[in-house]
Every structure is written in C-alpha cells, then in structure tokens.
C-alpha cells in the first residue's frame, strides 16, 4: 500500500501481502491424482489460489492440513469443465463461508466449521466431523450438508428448491434460534443426538416465516419454540423413507448406527402457507 494522498489509510484484509503463485508452490505436495496442501501460513486467498491451481492441473483429491480459519474454501472452484469434481479433505478448522457458492465438489472437514457453511451452495457435498457456526446452509439450493454435532443461529435460513434441485441438510446435534427461518424449500433433518434424554431442542422461533420445504425434527420440542408459520405433522411412509435415506447417509459418514437413531420420535414441520404474508397489504 502506498500512502500517497491517503489520510486514514486503507488496509485490505484479504489482498494485502498475498504472495504470487510461484511463492506458494512449496506448500503443495502433488502425488499423482492427489495433492496435499499445508495451510499453516497461507492467507485466505493464497489457499484458494492453490486449490484452484491443483484443480486446473486435473487433480481430483486434495488434502488440506493445518487449516486455521481460512475462508471460502471451495468457493473458487467454478471450473471451465463443469464435470470436473474435487474431493477436499480438511483437517483443522476452516473459516467462514466454507463452500460458499459451491459448485458440485465434495468437502470433508475433520474439525469444526465456522459461520456460513454452504452459503448459497449450488451443488456438491459438505461433511463436517464436528460442529458448525451460524447460518449453516443459508440460501442453499442444491447438494447435501451433513454436520455431526450442533449448529449455531439461523441454520437453514432461506434454503430453497425448484424442479430438479432439492438441497438436504442433516444436523446430528441441535440448533440455535431461528432454525429454518424463511425456509422456501429443501429437506432439513435435526437429530438432537447431543441432547440429554428428554431434553428439548434449544431453538426458539423455529421456522419463522417458513413458506416451503420440510424440517424433520427428532426429539422434544415445545409448541412455544415454533414460529407461527409452521405446523406439526406426524411422518407418513414417504417421509419415513426420506428420513431413513438421509439418516443412513449421515451415519455412514460418521460411523454411527442408524437403527437406534431412527427409533427416536420424529415429527415433521411444514409451512402452513406458501404465502405467509399474502394478506398484509391493501391494494
């Protein structure tokens, strides 16, 4: 940064000090079809520069170790060849917006994820062996996210679906307030595995403003915890098939047994209207 004419200065948190590609090669170890990146001193952009570079080289499996809060992992992988799919295995704790706008790749995190996991994700899969922060799966419109433990506030906010695309979010633990707010589509399964016997879920305002999609909730939830735009129904056979399928996938990812989980009591939360605010206007 030069200081010409700059009274207060302007520091760019993302781009200042980013090293050119040539200086980053030492962080990558390529072995045939797979690569390993050591993210220990890499900036957000540097790590994503490397991921893009290895993807463009045709590598399909990347392991990233020592991740400490680097953001947007997977976001820069809208590749010229849309069929090209990567598997990224992350050890450590990726930063915000993990897999934001994700375009069909698979990300597996061995650690906790922060805010914005799968933000506006289009397709692909994110598997978190740990917990996730706020707004997980915000505006997600395709692909699948599996989170082993709890999530923060406003998970699944404004998830959507349309013909041919239905996103799926499975959370092993519980969620915080405004879970499923403004949901317009998609399938969300909340298993409550981190709760004690008979302990109700944590969230209030569940499904506030919900107008599409479905939430399958396992375990206890009180009436006052639900937003006024959701209704509660028992599961029918089709619902059971959906839950069995995705709980099965969840258990396969985390080495759990589906049988006991499926024995728990599930209920289905549905929007009462596709048009929750259709009647508030005078024309």
């Amino acid at each position, binding site marked *: *940064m*030069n200081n*010409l*004419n*700059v*009274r*207060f200065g*302007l520091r*760019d*948190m*993302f781009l200042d000090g980013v090293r050119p590609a040539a200086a980053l090669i030492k962080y990558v170890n390529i072995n045939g079809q797979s690569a390993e990146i050591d993210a220990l001193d890499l900036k*957000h*952009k540097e790590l*994503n520069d490397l991921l*893009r570079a290895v993807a463009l080289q045709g590598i399909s499996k990347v392991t990233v170790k020592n991740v400490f809060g680097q*953001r*947007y992992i997977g*976001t*820069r992988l*809208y590749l010229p060849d849309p069929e090209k799919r990567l598997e990224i295995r992350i050890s450590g704790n990726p930063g*915000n*917006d993990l897999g*934001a*706008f994700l*375009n069909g790749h698979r990300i597996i995190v061995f650690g906790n994820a922060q*805010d*914005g996991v799968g*933000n*506006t994700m*289009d397709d692909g899969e994110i598997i978190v062996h740990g917990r996730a922060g706020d*707004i997980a799966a*915000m*505006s997600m*419109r395709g692909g699948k996210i599996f989170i082993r433990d709890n999530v923060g506030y*406003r998970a699944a*906010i*404004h998830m*959507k*679906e*349309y*013909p041919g*695309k239905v996103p799926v979010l499975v959370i092993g633990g519980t969620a915080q307030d405004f879970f499923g*707010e*403004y949901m*317009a*589509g998609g399938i969300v399964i909340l298993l409550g595995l981190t709760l004690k016997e008979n302990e109700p879920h944590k969230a209030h305002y569940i499904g506030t*403003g919900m*107008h*599409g999609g479905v939430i399958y909730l396992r375990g206890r939830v009180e009436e006052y915890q639900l937003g006024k735009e959701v209704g509660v129904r028992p599961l029918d056979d089709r619902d059971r098939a959906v839950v069995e399928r995705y709980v099965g996938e969840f258990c396969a990812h985390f080495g759990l047994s589906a049988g006991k989980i499926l024995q728990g009591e599930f209920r289905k939360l549905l929007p009462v209207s*596709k*048009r*929750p*605010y*259709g*009647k*508030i*206007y*005078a*024309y």
Partner: protein
Amino acid sequence: MYSYLLPEFIVERREDRCIACRVCERQCANDVHAYDPELERMVSRAEACVGCQRCAVLCPTGALLIRPHPAEYRPNSSWTREKLQDLKKQAETGGVILTGSGNDKPYRIYWDHLVLNASQVTNPSIDPLREPMELKTFLGRKPDTLEIDLDNGGVKIESALHPNVPVATPIVFSAMSYGAISYQAFQSLARAAKEAGTLFNTGEGGLPKEMRAAYGGNAIVQCASGRFGVDPEYLNCAAVIEIKIGQGAKPGIGGHLPGEKVSENISVTRMIPRGTDALSPAPQHDIYSIEDLSMLIYALKEATNYEKPVSVKIAAVHNVAAIASGMVRAGADIIAIDGLRGGTGAAPKIIRDNVGIPIELALAAVDKRLREEGIRNKCSILAAGGIRCSADVVKAIALGADAVYIGTAALVAMGCTLCQKCYTGKCNWGICTQDPYLAKRLNPEIAGRRLVNLLHGWSHEIKEMLGGMGINAIESLRGNREHLRGVGLAEWELDVLGVKGAGE
C-alpha cells in the same frame, strides 16, 4: 373494490366519435370499458380506472379522455384527498398500503436548482459534431498509482489493475427483475444494453439460462437478501456483480413477490418452488456489519476468480457518506446509491414516501467524504433514483458520480405512464405483468429500439452540454463542481452539495 372511495379518474367518451370498436375494452386489464349490447354503445366503470392512458392512446377515433377525477372533499392542506382515501382503504382492509414506481411527493428536486456552465470568450466551446468527444466510462476500482513502461516505443501499463468494465455512455439500466417486470421488458433492457454498449441489471430475479451467453456480458447480476437465482454460472457469466443492500424506494425493508406471479419460468429462474411467495428478507442474513459485507464481497470475488468488479447498492439514508466509506474499505469496487425518488415494482407507500434522502445530497456527500479520505479512486459511484433527463446525468456526474442508473426513465421509454399500479400485475403496457396476454403487447425488438434511441438522444445531449463547457471527455466533468451553480438554495444545501450560488 372499496366502498366510500371517490374514483381516481374520470372517463369521458365522446359519443359522436366512438364507433364501438371495443379496442378500449380489449386493452384494459382493469375491466373499465364494456360493450352494452342493449344500448348498443360502450359503457365505462371509472372507479376501476388507474389512469394508464392505454385506451386513450389506442382509441382509433380519439374518443376517450381520461383525467384525474375532479371531485374533491372540502379543501384542507393537512387532510388531503390522498390522505383521506388511504385512511378509508386501511379502515376497510387493515392492510399496509402498497404502491408502485417512485416517490411522487413534492420533496425538493435539487437537479432543478442546479444550473450548468458554458464557455464564453475566455475559453472556447467545443462542437461535438466535428470534434472527438469521449463518453466512455470505466466502472471499477482504480489503482492508487500507475506505473507505465514507455521504453519500447509503445505504452505498457506495468501496474496490476483491478477489473474494470467499460460502458460506452455513463448511463446504465437499473435493477428491474424478471418477475417484477415481464420477460419481454427484461429482454428489451438486455437487448438495448448490448446494442448501446452499456449494462442492464438483473435485479434479484436471476438471469434466465437462455439469456446468459448472449447478454451476460452486459449484465450486472444482483446477489440480494433472498439470493434468488444465484448460482456459480450466473455470477461468472456477468460483467459486474452487485450486492443489493437497499433500494431508494424502500430503504430498510425487503420485498415480497406474490406467489401468483411465480410461474414455472420464474420459479426456475429464481430457484424457488412454483407458487410460493418470493420473500426477500430485509437484511442479508450474512451481513450484519461492514466486516460481514467485506466477507460477502470477497466471497463473490472468490466465486468469480477476482475477474469482476463487485458493486454494493444502498439506499441513500442519513449517514450515507460514512456508510459508503465503510463499503469502499470493505472492498466494494462500485458503490451504487439509490435516492429518495428511486422507483419500485411494489413498496409500502408509507416507506416509499417518507424514508431516505434525495440522491443529489447523498451523492455529493459521498463523493466529498471519499475524496477527503483519499479513497475516491478505489470505487466508481453509480447514482440512481430520479434521473429524468440528460441534464440530470450531467449534473450527477459533476456532483461526483461516475455513471447513473436509470429505471423509471427506461420504463417510460418502453411505454410506462407512471400509473403506480405495478404491484397489481395488470400493466396494460405489458411491462410490469406476468400475464402472457398483456406481456406480449411489448415487443422486445421495438422496445429495445426505443431504449437505444433514448440512450442515443441523451448521449448526444450530454456531448452538447460538455462541448458547451469546453470539455471533451466525461472524465473531466466528474466531481467538477465548478461547472455547477445553485439557484434558490439555502446555505446548508449549497454546503452539502459543495457548489456555489449562481453569480458567485
């Protein structure tokens, strides 16, 4: 239909001219006109008339006159007819009063209190018919310094440049989404932008897949609070990406596209289920601070490999200058500011008419603040909200804008008459409707041509005004307040605008 309301318009039919051809009946989506076979003449229901003038314009014998209904309550400066009618509507429905298009209240229009300069004696004016005149504008972040290499006979820029998008004239079509406007109107804007070498803005309704290859290069694609229609291809096919924080017509609130407008096509383009309301939340739920804004700006840059400028659009509100400074520091390459008079397809009237500040004051304040902080080069400024003619464009640029957004002006060019009923979906001009019968009235080829004509006419007028000032490039006018003088403005207004009074 409401009881106790006076009709807004009166329909006068000259019976000696009417030939009962029933054109008016077919043209009116509000069912104002009908043929009475017993009387063998046309009859009208004035209370349904919105004053769009479609029937009057298309009547082959000029038999129709539509004008505001002259009936008045007892005159009262405080309790106007509009206030009374609104009260009665709310008493009947208990609802929030909706409206369309921009604020129509008599707030001061500063453009009309600013006059431009021209050269006399002491420097020559330029005739744009015979001398080169540059309107081309680059939108995006500019470097702090420029290193060039002159060694090998040519000029080579050595500094790393940020992505910039050129527009042939400093006029860009503002955000109007497919869904709010018809496919035909949306396509007209896209065609015109491409032909005229400028940009159109998709709004929050997505960009239909079949339009991406042909028109993506002229598109500003929005990423707004509902994230409708956002996928990686949408972001990567565009020229510019815009994060929509606010809109001049409804600062601080979201938007609801009613479910009945969400047809199959709109469902796929917006990526939501058919028939559900498209609800844009008031805030973006991943942005609660400048730091969060920065996070989304860089998420979008990451998603597009740092190849495209990212714009952030806000409504002009009280602390707009400080907010704009934060936006630039957060990494915005373009900041778009939409003023008090910006239009909308639907907004609560109470918000449209009372929230926000005029664009002229907001623009001047932002430009001044960014200059003082030495970061004006870090962004382009797009001014929006109430740009009605080429003189407004010139004045906006002299107050510091790089280019302007036009929305209402473009709609009027396509046929809109500002009847303010956009939210009903019954636009007789085929612009703000999803009814195929109405929408096909708008031919994208013809409407596109009209928009190109508008840009052409304005661009020529801008060149004439620039030439008169003795300037031959729009760049030299940017923020050049010496070419502006205020007329009839108070001291504080001149101070905020940064211009002298006329004669000073």
